[in-house]
């Protein structure tokens, strides 16, 4: 960004205001207005970081050239400048745009960078940038991050540990997908005539040049040989276009004549020897069930003058000009083959020379690879034998499968726990603690209890008590019917949409933060280290802080929504309860056993 801009302008408080004439000076981080009349009060010095945006009037001869720098909404107002002419305005506008963009970026990045740096971890800058980018893209994530990491509930590493996939996925997204060649042919490189003169124009773009190199190895080779030693790049392409032009006139005789005079031009007009060699090499690797070339040797018809000669299917061409004839079909086949192969190199298409060299390099690599592969033939044979089988006459083959391999067990168990949690939230069963290690006495005692209970109550045939069942059923029907009544008409509308916006957002936010906390909470079990222990207790504290907030929400909403909200809050509370119960039980176990096993436990 160039240092500063100085322009004459009038400062206006509103569009209709006549304004104060003066000089507007803009530097990288602020702008200063100095009125011509030194007594005027309209003198100010504002930093760009207070400016939120800018607007400007459309260009037109009779309209004034306005630029409005808008300020924060709460501070109100903005700064309107009228310039003497549009070019001046444009200069300023561009400058402001750049300054603002830079500033907002810097400020955002700055704040988050500092946040990340709070925790002294050894992170690569790339990793850091990636995290910052993610946070910036996802406001939800940013909120969570702020809430937990900055408040110290979770460490930076913990927060990101559960989001590894997000980070990884991002890397693959950053290495952008390679674009293949276009399906359209380069023969679409149509000569343009202007109609009046005999001049013919061709348009070559780097993209087209790359494609030409890939499809016509002879041109590629010639380019490497001739440019820049023998001729300039411009001359080279001139010559190429001349050859193309001759080709599209389909005058093989003229082409032959021109080629005879100019040997460089001949390179473009003649058959491509490199291609022919490549074809000969490739033909050996072709599927033998397709190989029509093999017939050539077996077919006695090809003996000169054997078979029926003039049956109307063969075309006659003078062999002298044969090599200057290039058909559309050849071009089509070649083009399709190149498109199918895909773009072998990944370089910027700016400089033709580098493209040409990179392509040559990739070709050499390819040729080297080709020699080493022996498994290809075997693979091909297997393919043939598979293809000869008639599929529906036999039982279907076992499809090839890959063994399950969990790359990151941590990730897997995290997700499993999250799933478990979800079912936990849905059913009440989760809140009951199941004690697994029972002594015989305990078991006996509980069995006795059951027996005596049954003795006193009698064996109830239905396992669920009728009155409870009725209650649940009533509750459910009421609930369903009321929701149905409100929502049945519109499938898109959900309960949430009917709540006040603030409540809705709060609920959603709490839901995500609870989920985040729970995920970490459950993933820290079984507690094996003191680190996990402190983490669990820290998480428990954080959750217990949310608990009353949920109650608050429930109470704050109006009575007609209260039922809905409580329905929504219920699973959250249950999930939290389950977590607390687990924590308490674990705590008890721990204190109980700590005496017996001084070494701690696993």
């Amino acid at each position, binding site marked *: 960004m160039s240092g500063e801009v100085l322009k004459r302008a009038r400062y206006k408080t509103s569009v209709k205001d006549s304004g104060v004439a003066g000089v507007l000076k803009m530097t990288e981080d602020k702008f200063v207005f100095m009125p011509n009349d030194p007594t005027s009060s309209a003198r100010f010095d504002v930093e760009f970081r207070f400016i939120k945006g800018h607007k400007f009037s459309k260009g037109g001869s009779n309209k004034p050239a306005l630029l409005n720098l808008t300020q924060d909404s709460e501070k109100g107002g903005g700064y309107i400048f009228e310039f003497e002419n549009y070019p001046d305005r444009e200069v300023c506008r561009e400058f402001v745009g750049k300054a603002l963009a830079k500033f907002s970026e810097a400020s955002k990045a700055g704040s988050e960078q500092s946040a990340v740096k709070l925790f002294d971890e050894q992170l690569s800058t790339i990793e850091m940038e990636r995290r910052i980018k993610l946070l910036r893209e996802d406001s939800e994530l940013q909120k969570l991050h702020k809430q937990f990491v900055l408040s110290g509930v979770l460490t930076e590493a913990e927060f990101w540990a559960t989001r590894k996939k997000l980070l990884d996925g991002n890397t693959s997204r950053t290495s952008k997908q390679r674009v293949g060649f276009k399906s359209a042919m380069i023969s679409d490189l149509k000569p343009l005539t202007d109609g009046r003169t005999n001049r013919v124009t061709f348009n070559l773009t780097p993209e087209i040049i790359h494609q030409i190199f890939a499809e016509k190895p002879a041109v590629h080779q010639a380019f490497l040989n001739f440019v820049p030693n023998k001729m300039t790049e411009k001359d080279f392409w001139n010559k190429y276009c001349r050859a193309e032009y001759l080709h599209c006139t389909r005058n093989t005789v003229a082409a032959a004549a021109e080629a005879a005079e100019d040997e460089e031009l001949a390179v473009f007009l003649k058959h491509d020897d490199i291609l022919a060699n490549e074809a000969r090499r490739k033909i050996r690797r072709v599927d033998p069930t*397709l*190989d029509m070339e093999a017939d050539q040797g077996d*077919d006695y018809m090809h003996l000169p*003058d054997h078979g*029926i000669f003039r049956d109307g299917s063969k075309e006659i061409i003078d062999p002298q000009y044969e090599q200057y004839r290039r058909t*559309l*079909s050849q071009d089509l086949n070649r083009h399709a083959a190149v498109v*199918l192969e895909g773009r072998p190199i990944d370089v910027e298409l700016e400089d033709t020379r580098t493209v040409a060299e990179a392509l040559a390099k990739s070709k050499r690599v390819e040729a080297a690879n080709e020699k080493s592969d022996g498994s290809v033939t075997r693979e091909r044979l297997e393919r043939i034998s598979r293809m000869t089988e*008639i599929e529906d006459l036999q039982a279907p083959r076992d499809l090839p499968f890959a063994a399950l391999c969990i790359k990151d067990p941590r990730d897997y168990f995290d997700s499993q726990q999250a799933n478990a949690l979800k079912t936990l939230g849905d059913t009440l069963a989760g809140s009951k603690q199941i004690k697994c290690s029972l002594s015989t006495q305990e078991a006996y005692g509980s069995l006795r209890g059951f027996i005596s209970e049954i003795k006193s109550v009698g064996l109830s045939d239905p396992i669920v008590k009728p009155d409870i069942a009725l209650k649940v059923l009533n509750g459910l029907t009421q609930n369903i019917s009321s929701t149905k009544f409100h929502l049945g008409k519109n499938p898109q509308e959900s309960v949430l949409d009917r709540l006040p916006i603030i409540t809705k957002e709060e609920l959603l936010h709490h839901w995500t933060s609870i989920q985040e906390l729970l995920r970490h909470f459950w993933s820290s079990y079984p507690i094996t280290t003191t680190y996990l222990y402190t983490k669990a207790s820290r998480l428990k504290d954080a959750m217990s802080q949310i608990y009353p907030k949920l109650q608050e929400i429930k109470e704050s909403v109006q009575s007609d929504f209260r039922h809905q909200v409580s329905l929504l809050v219920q699973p959250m509370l249950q999930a939290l309860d389950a977590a607390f119960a687990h924590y308490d039980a674990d705590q008890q176990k721990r204190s109980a056993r700590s005496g017996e096993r001084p070494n701690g436990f696993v």
Partner: protein
Amino acid sequence: MKFQIEDVTVYFPYDNIYPEQYSYMVELKRALDAKGHALLEMPTGTGKTIALLSLITSYALSKPSNPIKLLYCTRTVHEMEKTLAELRLLHQYQLRHLGPAARILALGLSSRKNLCINPAVVSAENRDSVDAGCRKLTASWVRALAVENPNIPTCQFFENYEKAASEAVLPPGVYTLQDLRAFGRDKGWCPYFLARHMVQFANVVVYSYQYLLDPKVAGIISKEMQRESVVVFDEAHNIDNVCIEALSVSVRRQTLEGATRNLSKMAQEINRFKATDAGRLRAEYNRLVEGLAQRGNLPISDTWLANPALPDDILKEAVPGNIRRAEHFLSVLRRLVQYLHGRLETENVEKEGPVAFVASINSQAGIDQKMLKFCYDRLHSLMLTLEITDTDEFLHIQTICDFATLVGTYTRGFSIIIEPFDERMPHIPDPVLQLSCHDASLAIKPVFERFQSVVITSGTLSPIDLYPRLLNFNPVVSRSFTMSLTRNCICPMVLTRGSDQLPVSTKFDMRSDPGVVRNYGRLLLEMVSVVPDGIVCFFVSYSYMDGIVNTWNESGILKEIMQHKLVFIETQDVVETTLALDNYRRACDCGRGAVFFSVARGKVAEGIDFDRHYGRLVIMFGVPFQYTLSRILLARLEYLRETFQIKEGDFLTFDALRQAAQCVGRVIRSKADYGMMIFADKRYSRHDKRSKLPGWILSHLRDAHLNLSTDMALHIAREFLRKMAQPYDKAGVSGRKTLLSEEDLEKMGDGTTNEMLF
């Protein structure tokens, strides 16, 4: 599975069998029992090849005392590979069930070019150079010289093979060309000569039609096959054309010039020999006096492609006295070349029968019919005597002698046509003298006579009664099978109108109409956007395809097509076409989808399968009639009318429709496969054309699909594809079983086997 057909236990490598495969086998078995010939039409996609192989090998296994040999002829080398792959599958199955008793030797046989492993030889450009390159290293006189002079190069593979002598055998198994090469490399033996040697001991030999039909090749390669062989011509719908081509020769100016050069080269050689080794020429003379019969005793590496279909008694005859001496023979050939030169100078088209032609040669050049007849053999005897190894240089004179022998041997079924220029390009003088054979039965006659069973089979042999007439034989079994389908997995349509409702056709007066070209383009464009994976288009000729593709390119339709699928084209260059096909398959495999443009009488239509996702739709643009103004065709039509009372129109339609059916039949491989076929020409809706299509297509051609326009066809295509994507019951709906298991067959075996389900 394993089941009985009468007294033969058939081993079939799959768990199930199609009912038509079963009845095909039953018919085939009857033909074998009767030791007679068979003509069987069975739709493509019903596993014809495996049914054939499985029955014949099982038949041979069940009669161990006198096992029959199978000579399986394919049109092309890649079909040979496919057949051998199926045979391998079958063989593995039989080995599993029968153990070592089922061991057979099966091999593919091809030319040196496909079998040679000597890198110095095989790198040559074409077949003739490879042959010549081989001969330079392996001819008996070269090897004799090499013994004295170690600087003379020989082929180490051939030397090793010779050294191993009787040890050099192939262990039982199934050998494709590639396996043969690998085996040869492993042992250091020449695979070509090994295979040639093993052919006599093999149970199954798979090779090209020419090895039986072309007398030049058949004489050496197939002469040792016993009478108790079954000869199968697979994909034989074009067999009449192959027979005709095998006996046709054409002579152009270049041929004559080349022949003159060859003659002077030979004259030099003769003079050289006269000076150095006169005894050799004398020895040849004496040999010729005794006759040609000893030719068979030549070392294997010296043998020549033998004489054209000479009756056996001629072989015992002595070569006429006036061409026994080398220089006399050369002067006869010179006079012949001179005479042909004179005939080529004509201004008008001339047509003659062989008898008149021979008489004219006799009067003008003083060469009688008997001398002509022996030209081919005499030439080869001379070339052997002169120890000429670079045979590829002497092709022209061979052509001339070939021509002479044919003219001298046959008195009917041929005509000689001299054209001063191609009538499509009257301004370019390009005289050609063509000896064209009209009678397909001439070439195939020795085959029918020599072997006890000849099976001619294909997916398209309709009308099936025409073939016995064309080939002049009496089949004991002649049947056409229809296809029992589990679901309607083929969908033929006749498209008569384009998107603008105007008729489309490749009729001569309509084909260059821009409206028709555009309508064809729109049809393809609409289809590429609807049909997944591969689409194959067939055009009536190369020139038409070139024209229409160029027009599409100029009008931008091609570009739009390429937005949907990649485009590949068959060209006259085989290497390029092969690579294009390979790429086409890759494009279909990777899901990109592609269109393949091909020609109805081209090599692709002949033998490449577009099964499964390689072809979900075939569009046949136009009716692939032959070039009707061709004089050769006209002469043949005349001959057919006079000899077999076949009407010209009937024959042309029959020929065009069998090509069309052949093209569209390439999309189906099994009943699990599916595909659509569009016949895009208004002429297909006419009954006389349509009715010539094979039954299995006609039975699926619904009346509602007979007169469609592009939009209707598009609608049908959408519906069809949606329906085919649904899962279905493979065994077929109750009542009509389309897939038989072993139990089903046993149950049927109790009752009458005739009671088939279709």
